[in-house]
């Protein structure tokens, strides 16, 4: 094995009543890797993110962060252990300012900072995502994309070992997309491990080391983006002939 695995899903299933949202899914994410989790709408990608972050508990199977089993832990303990995430539809704390939102990440995440050092660290993260100017703004004044930037800064403020991004690049225009892709590359360069749920194929191709492709809750392909996206089943279920 070239790199140790940081995150490992072992035969994970999740049922909602009669619906099997995730079906016997196994994959690993290696140290310092950007893994793309892709698949059709409703294939279970966000459910996987929810299982890793502890928002949901698997019906079966285990999830490990390095040697620690996290799938039986509550979300707050998983955050402490070093998993941070963003949400597909942004979830900021609306009664707090931008800076306070990011400080919350530093206080309750992996990093556990407090007071002046939490604020300083939070401001650095805002700087990184290009939102330093909005520090004391109320979150309600932000555009949707700026909200997403704040949410990323909040996740980074916890100094996570594994960062889960759920469609973080969606809705960016081509210029903004380039900046977003650069940002993800810089996060990788500083040693972070990232799981990326995304439909923006340019981003998948240019930033992911490997992809796992899901359909109906199960893994249908994995490998480099070129290899995985060229598979017949992936083209049929996900890309469509127009986009292959």
């Amino acid at each position: 094995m070239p790199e140790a695995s940081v995150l490992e899903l072992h035969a994970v299933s999740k049922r909602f009543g009669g619906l099997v949202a995730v079906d016997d899914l196994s994959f690993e994410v290696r140290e310092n890797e950007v893994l793309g989790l892709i698949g059709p709408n409703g294939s279970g990608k966000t459910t996987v993110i929810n299982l890793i972050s502890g928002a949901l508990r698997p019906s079966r199977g285990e999830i490990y962060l390095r040697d620690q089993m996290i799938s039986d832990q509550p979300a707050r303990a998983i955050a402490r252990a070093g998993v941070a995430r963003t949400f597909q539809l942004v979830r900021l704390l609306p009664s707090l300012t931008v800076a306070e939102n990011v400080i919350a990440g530093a206080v309750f995440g992996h990093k556990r900072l407090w007071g002046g050092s939490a604020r300083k660290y939070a401001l650095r993260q805002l700087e990184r995502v290009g939102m330093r100017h909005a520090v004391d703004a109320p979150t309600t004044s932000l555009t949707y994309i700026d909200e997403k930037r704040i949410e990323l800064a909040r996740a980074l403020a916890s100094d996570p070992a594994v960062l889960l991004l759920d469609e973080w690049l969606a809705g960016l225009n081509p210029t903004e997309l380039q900046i977003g892709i650069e940002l993800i590359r810089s996060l990788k360069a500083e040693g972070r491990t990232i799981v990326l749920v995304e439909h923006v194929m340019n981003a998948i191709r240019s930033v992911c080391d490997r992809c796992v492709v899901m359909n109906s809750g199960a893994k249908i392909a994995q490998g480099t983006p070129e290899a995985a996206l060229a598979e017949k089943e992936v083209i049929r279920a996900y890309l469509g002939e127009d986009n292959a």
Partner: protein
Amino acid sequence: MLDCRGVSVRYGRHQAIDDVAIRVAPGEIVVILGANGAGKTTLLNAIAGLVPANGEVTLDGRSLRGLPPHLIVEAGLALVPEGRRIFGDLTVHENLMLGAYAKRARQSEREHLDRALALFPKLAERGRQIARTMSGGEQQMIAIARAMMSSPTILMLDEPSLGLSPLLCSELFRTLRRIKDTGVGIFLVEQNAKQSLAIANRGYLLDNGHIVGSDTAEALSRDEKVQTAYLGGG
């Protein structure tokens, strides 16, 4: 025909859009391109009556000025809002039926439902599912179908392709073209400039709250400045 003249919106001291004029005729697709923060969502919200605006908005010659949002829907204008805004605790079917609450649509709701479900067959299979338990992309389909249920003459969509897989995204644009062919005028905000220009008749460029250009979709896709700014290079 949707006709906006001199539409301006301020948020406190911030001028979000300034003196905007746009027109959308029945049976055409008009796309509005602009960076995030340019004021695209504000413009749609202003037309839909969700934020107070100055200026004149008419639909088929009738002024929408000062009308509350539900009467604007009644007049024939529907919005698929940013962030879906579906009713999470209701079923898919209930969400769709609420779309047909407007008097203009209530009588023929069955017909609208059939049409909406033909556009998104997946919603037919999932009619009894609680909406919030569906995936993001599926919820986006509900939002679009719900807007169609009000039988609009003008349909406005705020980034409908957000979160859709490449396959569904292509399907969505084909669907929009089919809706257009039924005589509905479509006013579309999209970051997916390439695919939206491909189906659009005309487009406007919005920059910093101002309309800075407008042309046929074909001319816009060839325009070098548009290519650099919205189409990701050449």
